[in-house]
């Protein structure tokens, strides 16, 4: 690595450090509040699924209903694309679910059958 590049990279680190130090007071207050709220979760027991907020259940029901209706009127590919959009736009969905979408798509498109293997 050249000396010039080293200087440039050092300057970027110092600039980013300065940006972090320059976070305004209101934002720092919000971050501290978010941290307190996160830590409070340690003291809260896990709730069973039937006590999930109504909005979460409503979102899940909406996704299910749309999936069924789309599946009836569109090819599988379009349905899965629409389903992915709906899930992504739902804040209640877990990121892990997004990662599994390709698997669900593969499953719906007809995962290799035992017959296919010989």
């Amino acid at each position, binding site marked *: 690595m050249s000396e*010039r*590049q080293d200087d*440039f*990279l050092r*300057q*970027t*680190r110092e*600039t*980013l450090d*300065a*940006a*972090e130090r*320059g*976070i305004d007071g209101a*934002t*720092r207050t*919000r*971050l*501290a509040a*978010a*941290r307190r*709220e*996160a*830590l409070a*979760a*340690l003291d809260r027991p896990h709730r069973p699924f039937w006590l999930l907020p109504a909005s979460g259940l409503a979102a899940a029901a909406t996704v299910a209903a749309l999936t069924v209706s789309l599946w009836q009127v569109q090819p599988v590919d379009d349905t899965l694309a629409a389903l*992915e*959009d709906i899930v*992504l*736009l739902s804040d209640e969905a877990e*990121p892990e679910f*997004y990662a599994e979408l390709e698997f669900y798509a593969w499953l719906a498109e007809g995962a290799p059958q035992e017959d296919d293997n010989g």
Partner: protein
Amino acid sequence: MDRFLAAVEGRAYRMAWIATGNREDALDIVQDAMLRLVKGYAGRPEVEWPPLFQRIVQSAIRDWYRRNRVRNRWRQWLGFSPATDDEAGGDPLQTTIASAAPGPDGELASQHAIDALEAALRALPLRQQQAFLLRQWEGLSVADTAAAMGVSAGSVKTHYSRAVQALRDKLEDHWP
């Protein structure tokens, strides 16, 4: 855990802000990441928290990008124009870089340098942006960066190298 989060929250916020360009979205990403770390990994050894937290933050940023892309697609489908950053006209990156020359006092010059760097970082593809910030700012190894980004080590090296080149091309001649 409180001390750890207090030490990393500002940097995580700044990374999320660079990625999203939006204060509220950046705060949401950091808040969600803190909650996930606490709920999922508080019982793990402290030494594991930094890479776990970075993995959660970077994953949340990628989710934000995907959601944003979908929102724009649906906006277009519904007849609305997609949200853009350049509605004011001109190239905001070039405007910011051009104003990054030394100002009348050090503080102003420093703010210009911050604005120019953050604008240049935001203009990078997300993977390059993540690779650069994790390697250069967080000081993560190639392996830890790859784990945080969910890609291979080779991919991290490629993205990082391209990011450095792009940033040097854009900034090196303009910075004080």
